[in-house]
């Protein structure tokens, strides 16, 4: 507490000394953003028939699932009484955006992700069940809900229902991450957060980060399996990343220009904060390193012709910088919104713990855990090989591919 008091500049309301929302609350929108973004990439192929990105379809879904499973963890670690969190299901306060969380999350997890993955993988699950013995067989049979029907007609029905679920999933993904933006954007007490643009900015930065993540994981997966990267696939992904990034950047610039132009009562205090306390995380990391550099790199690829190796290198670099930039954006919104006093007369500091419940170690663990879960999911439901007796691409296709493409 002494160090916090020493870190105060100017005047803050006495209760503002300690920050309320920690780095874990920075991670939550980051993780759900990756989920929404990965799903949008998957829906590009399924709904908008962008065939080139098919090799990443299943991988994108599994990535979304892995990150969605971990998403409630930072929230539970942050709550003063996590054992009471079920109250949000039984007595949700309908005027609170946060109360929507439980239902939106459950809807998205069960109805959208799990059902879509199940429908797409069902054929492979049943085939695995038939080919396994013992505990493994039980697992796969349970996953198939003890159904053994993979006749062409059943698979055709699956494809139709799956497409419907994906179409339903797009607005659901918007809702899953958009409401997080609304949680911040609707707080009139906080001028750094309060703007109608917040849900839109959050959503587009989510799409950007999710696309970048799947691109990186796909390329890493190819590297680990010793397979060549499907260049038309990543070229297409990078192009969509570029477009989404342009929109995201424009939205953030619009917010900035608006603030500078209107210069309302909060402007001076926020401007000072951005130039001092948030200089490294906002100006350097988010805007320059995390947005302008990757945008420039991706633009370079659109405008010039480069070798495959050069393009792959740029994609990896741009992807990593993008993820860093979007994480920095979440940090600047959440932490930045709490560094200045609502009296507009002073600032406090954020002291992130190290081995505490909401500290740095926990944050790193929360970021690594989804990758471990993804590794497990990839083992259980391989997104690359389509299973026994399937098509011959060696890359992930739809489980119902056998009914959509003529057998070789």
């Amino acid at each position, binding site marked *: 507490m002494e160090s916090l008091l020493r870190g105060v500049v100017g005047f803050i309301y006495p209760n503002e000394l300690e920050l309320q929302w920690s780095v874990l609350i920075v991670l939550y929108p980051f993780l759900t953003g990756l989920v929404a973004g990965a799903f949008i990439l998957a829906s590009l192929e399924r709904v908008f028939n962008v065939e080139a990105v098919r090799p990443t379809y299943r991988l994108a879904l599994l990535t979304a699932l892995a990150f969605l499973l971990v998403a409630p963890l930072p929230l539970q670690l942050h709550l003063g009484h996590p054992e009471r969190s*079920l109250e949000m299901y*039984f*007595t949700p306060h309908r005027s609170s955006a946060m109360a929507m969380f439980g239902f939106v999350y459950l809807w998205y997890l069960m109805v959208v992700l799990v*059902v879509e993955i*199940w429908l797409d993988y069902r054929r492979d699950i049943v085939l695995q069940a038939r080919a396994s013995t013992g505990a493994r067989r039980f697992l796969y049979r349970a996953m198939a809900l003890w*159904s053994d*029907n993979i006749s062409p*007609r*059943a698979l055709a029905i699956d494809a139709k229902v799956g497409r419907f679920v994906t179409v339903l999933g797009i607005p659901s993904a918007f809702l899953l991450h958009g409401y997080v933006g609304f949680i911040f954007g609707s707080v009139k007490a906080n001028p750094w957060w309060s703007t109608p643009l917040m849900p839109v900015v959050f959503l587009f930065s989510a799409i950007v980060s999710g696309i970048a993540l799947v691109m990186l994981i796909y390329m890493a997966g190819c590297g680990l399996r010793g397979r060549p990267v499907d260049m038309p696939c990543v070229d297409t992904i990078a192009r969509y990343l570029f477009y989404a990034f342009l929109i995201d950047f424009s939205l953030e610039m619009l917010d900035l220009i608006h603030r500078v132009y209107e210069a309302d009562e909060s402007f001076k205090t926020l401007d000072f904060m951005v130039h001092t306390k948030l200089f490294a995380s906002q100006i350097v990391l988010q805007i320059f390193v995390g947005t302008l550099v990757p945008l420039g790199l991706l633009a370079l690829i659109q405008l010039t012709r480069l070798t495959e190796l050069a393009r792959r290198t740029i994609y990896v670099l741009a992807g990593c910088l993008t993820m860093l930039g979007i994480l920095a954006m979440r940090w600047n919104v959440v932490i930045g919104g709490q560094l200045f006093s609502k009296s507009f007369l002073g600032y406090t500091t954020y002291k992130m713990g190290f081995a505490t419940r909401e500290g740095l170690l926990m944050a790193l663990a929360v970021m690594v855990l989804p990758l471990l879960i993804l590794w497990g999911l990839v083992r259980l439901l391989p997104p690359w090989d389509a299973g026994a007796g399937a098509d011959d691409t060696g890359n992930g296709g739809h489980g119902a591919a056998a009914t959509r493409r003529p057998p070789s």
Partner: protein
Amino acid sequence: MVRRFRDTGHLLRLAGLFALGGGLFAIASLFMVPDGFGRYGHYRPGALADNRAPAPRYADTASCAGCHDDIVAARQGSRHVQVRCQACHGPLAAHAADPAADTPARPDAATLCLNCHRQLAARPAAFPQIEPVDHAGGESCLSCHNPHHPEPEGS
């Protein structure tokens, strides 16, 4: 009928699973929602009683006069009459309930008087405030002032 639902058995099982989940949730709600929730608004009415429950630590103002009527009389006509007893003597509910068991300590004049009467720029100009060294040269406030009737004799 049978023909239309052929090959959808797995989907019906999935639907059944969701229906089961929904049913379990509905049953759980009956137990998990507190009694009377929503009667006055979106909250548990028992919370009103919870907020009313703690025992006050400061006594009711009027209860001091019951035993200390001599002090009350002495304060009449003084500007300190508007200063309630507990402003200087602290929380007295325990003492009022059982006077013998809980006798509060007499407050230290030096700290207590200056708490209100030390010269501060932000205090209203008309409010009586002094710089202790200039006013009394280090003497105790009690040398000249009775806290219950602080105006000097004859005024």
